[in-house]
């Protein structure tokens, strides 16, 4: 049986019986086995699971970065599955933002230019009020003219967050956003992500393997062996850790 969680009409992203199979024959790997999940608008959801559980694959499929073998994925009103390159590009421009573990800023551009890059790619002007809000929230006003190399890791990741927020996407996907940061910088970034959800109604889906990071989320979805096996609402680091420990013995989780 597949776990079906969070049935709500207000879904920002939705996976419906998603299968993902890599390779064929003996080299076949099933990364996702019929995952169905909804991610509500205006909430901060973490996806957790041990290595190889398929959590990153699920996120890539949700974001339209990877195709699904079976099932459908949609973001807002848009069905992602079956979109061509043009459709996917439009989707990434209008509805999706990304935050990466490696920050992925362009080294040649200043912080400000990096933040505005998605808008300039799409040929749009930033909304000045929202831009100011974002800059102030991430606290980078005095660093805007610096290049990434002149910024600390935490500052770089805040630039990346600002970049994701500034185009007000339907949903932001964050891939281990604190994986490369020390715990203080990590806490700053996570706090900032949670605030953007609470204060500005942003939807965020974050993949992580760090229980402390997951505790910042409103809800945690657990994956193991390509299936959703559990979820926690209003998690704490302890409850997350407990759940993670039980994942080794899936039978207990099933209850």
């Amino acid at each position, binding site marked *: 049986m597949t776990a079906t969680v969070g049935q709500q009409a207000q879904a920002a992203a939705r996976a419906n019986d998603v299968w993902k199979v890599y390779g064929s024959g003996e080299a076949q790997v099933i990364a996702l086995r019929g995952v169905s999940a909804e991610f509500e608008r205006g909430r901060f959801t973490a996806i957790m699971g041990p290595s190889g559980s398929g959590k*990153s694959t699920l996120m890539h499929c949700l974001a339209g970065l990877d195709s699904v073998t079976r099932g459908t994925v949609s973001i807002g009103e848009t069905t992602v599955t079956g979109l061509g390159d043009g459709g996917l590009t439009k989707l990434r*421009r209008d509805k999706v933002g*990304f935050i990466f573990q*490696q920050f992925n800023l362009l080294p040649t*551009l200043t912080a400000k230019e990096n933040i505005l*890059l*998605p808008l*300039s*790619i*799409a040929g749009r002007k930033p909304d000045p009020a929202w831009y100011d809000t974002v800059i102030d929230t991430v606290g980078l006003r005095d660093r805007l003219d610096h290049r990434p190399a002149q910024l600390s890791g935490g500052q770089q990741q805040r630039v990346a967050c600002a970049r994701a927020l500034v185009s007000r996407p339907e949903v932001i996907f964050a891939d281990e956003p604190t994986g490369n940061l020390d715990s203080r910088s990590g806490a700053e970034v996570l706090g900032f992500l949670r605030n953007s959800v609470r204060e500005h109604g942003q939807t965020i889906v974050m993949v992580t393997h760090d229980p402390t990071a997951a505790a910042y989320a409103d809800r945690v979805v657990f994956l193991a062996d390509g299936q959703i096996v559990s979820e926690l609402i209003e998690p704490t680091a302890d409850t997350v850790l407990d759940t993670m420990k039980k994942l080794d013995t899936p039978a207990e989780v099933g209850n």
Partner: protein
Amino acid sequence: MFRATLKSLLARKVRLILSGLAVVLGVMFVSGAFVLTDTLGRSFDSVFADGFSEIDVNVAAKPKVEISELEGEQTASPLPAAVVDRVTQVPGVASATGIVNADGARVIGSNGKVVTSFGPPQLGENWTGESDLLQLREGRAPQAEDEIVINRALATTAKVQVGQKVGVLTAFESKKREFTLVGVAGYSGDRDSIGGVNEVFFTTPVAQRLMLGEPDTFSSVTVRAADGVSDEALRDDVARTLGADFEVKTGEQVAADASASLKEGLSFFNKILLGFAAVALLVGTFLILNTFSIIVAQRTRELALMRAIGASGRQIIGSVVLEAIAVGLIASVLGLAAGIGVGALLAFLFGKLAGGLTLAGIGVPAAAVIGSFAVGLVITVVAALLPALRASRIPPIAAMQDVATPDRPLTKVTVAGSLVTGIGAVLLFLGLSGNAGGQTLATILGGVLFAFIGVALLTPLISRPVVSLLGAIFSWSVPGKLGRLNSGRNPRRTAITAAALMVGIALVTGVTVILDSAKGSISALAQDTIKAELVISGQQGGPRPPSFDPGVLDRTKALPGVQLVDGEYGDMARIDGESTWVTASSDIASLRQIFGAKATAGDIDRLGPTQMLASSDTATSRGWSVGSTVNVQLTRGEARTYTVSGIYESTQLTNPVTLPATAAKDFAIPQPIQAFIQLAPGARVADVQPQVETLLADSPEVSVADRDAFIKQQTSQLDGLLTMIQILLALAIVIAVLGIINTLALSVLERTRELGLLRAIGLRRGQTMGMITVEAVVISVFGALLGVAVGTGLGAAVVEALKDEGITDLILPWGQMGVFLGLAAVIGVVAAVLPAVRAARINVLGAIAHD
């Protein structure tokens, strides 16, 4: 987006400099060619405008045989002296002067050698007095039969002074005749000559006899208009009076026509230079393609990020192409500037070489500018298109994870390569077998181009085994082994880098194979055929072949030990309205015996005064058989009817048409230009040769050589051609070397972390440099190997196709090939220097932390 592209371009400017440099060099070649030919063209214009500035209207007889600039100097037909009087009587004529002006007045310098000309004619003229243009600088005008005046340029070259006796060879006397130099002339504006022309001024009767061969004739009549009469009106009046047998032109027209014929030669020269520029640019294309591919590979993550945050595939292509446009534009500007410099420099050198041609100001013709930008931009953008397309296919997901870039299978590229090579082979076959339907040259060139691209596409496949084999030589040391493995790591990159070198080397090898084979075949044929122990001939320096006194022929024949003498004359004639090279032999029977000619029809042992012989090829193509009558117009005299009395078998050495000795007096050069001497059985070359030398004392343009030396001298002209082609192709090879440097530099950059690691675990600096050097040497030797192989193939194909033209022996220049491979190894070492130093300087700690 635009801004991000430009910023990223600026950040990587060093990486793009080398690929830009390739475009700069190619564009330089293109714009240099245009600037050079334009400057020379305008210089000729001004030279001729100047030279004819004293002439309002010029009257000349229609030339009997029109000759293009590429075939030699036009010889005007003489007009009778009475024409001068008729012109003088035309109303509006202020004065009419009969002018003698013909090529072939050769002065013997103070060193006893004939002063040669590289291009401008050596004119013999009659002295008609000073003018605004021409003045005596020293001495006086020639008054007696044995007095001459020469221009200052000639006096300087010949190192002769007023008062000295000077030997001169003239158009009708290739035997030295002594004159007293009574004056030196120069031109207004303190010029020693106009356009580097050497001039000898005789008294009018002497000029008529020695330069035109007939008394009371002139080359032309120059007319000055009376005040208030326009040149054009006077021209029309004179033309009406004289009738249709004369060419009456204004001075301006004459200047324009003279200049136009030289410019025809220049435009041909320009095309050749552009052809070599095209080769350089083809090589440059490979280099740019490689650079952009590597840059795209290095930016995978960055480009994937762009895609992840919403850039479309088209925007990615746009950004790479935009980069290419920027590089192309900058390179075009630099190339254009460099080309203007090179063009100016070459024009200057040419002016010096041509005996002090006064250069017009350096101009930049529109063609140079348009050509530079078109070529620079198009080449760069075309070369960047493939990498751009590849960049657009980078999945956005690559921004999140190190997408393992699996070795893309080489199947597709191999199939494409085989296909393109096949097309090239078919085109080559069609072109070489003469089935291209009139587009032979274009088909062959297309075939070569396709073959190159096809082989370049196949190179990745070949590179694996070959590179690994080559590298095995170095595998005894750890750095050598690492270098070898590195060069096999990215077969496509190695392949394109090597392919760029291949193009240059292949062309040089191909041309060498063809020319060596031609040389060998002709030598072998000459050795087998020519039964003459001694040959009289001279080295041709300018447009006019050396000639000698025909009296030498009889005197040689009379020498003890000489059995047969065949003196040969040559000229361009019109036969039945078609330009044809004709020769005359002083003794047709000797010619037949010395060359062992075989008759295919009629009698070729004797020749009556109105009979002629033709080679079998010529007879076939012109539809002649024994008994055919043809109309022959020689440079001088009236057209005459000849009857074909015999046909001889064509070989590489036979002339198309042979006329009787009596015809030679109407040739442009009525003296023999070569003679073949067969010795009597038992006579020794060493005995006869000095005696012939003595006979030639008054004909310093020629000398007597034994047969081997003669054959060597004849075929040595091909060596000059080969050297020129090699020099012009050197640029393509230089660009290929830039390509190797570029690939290595980018590879070093890409492997910073890895190099740091190697250094961290104990690889010494020297070993690091050794590793890079091995990689470079392996790539360049591989490229040279490919080039030698492809070039040999192309050359052999051409030689095979030319079998019927007499190139029967395929001669492979093993020595040259060895030199190319050795050179490639050196090139590799040189190319490795900068990247190796860079690799050795890598900061170990920084490199490991490098992201």
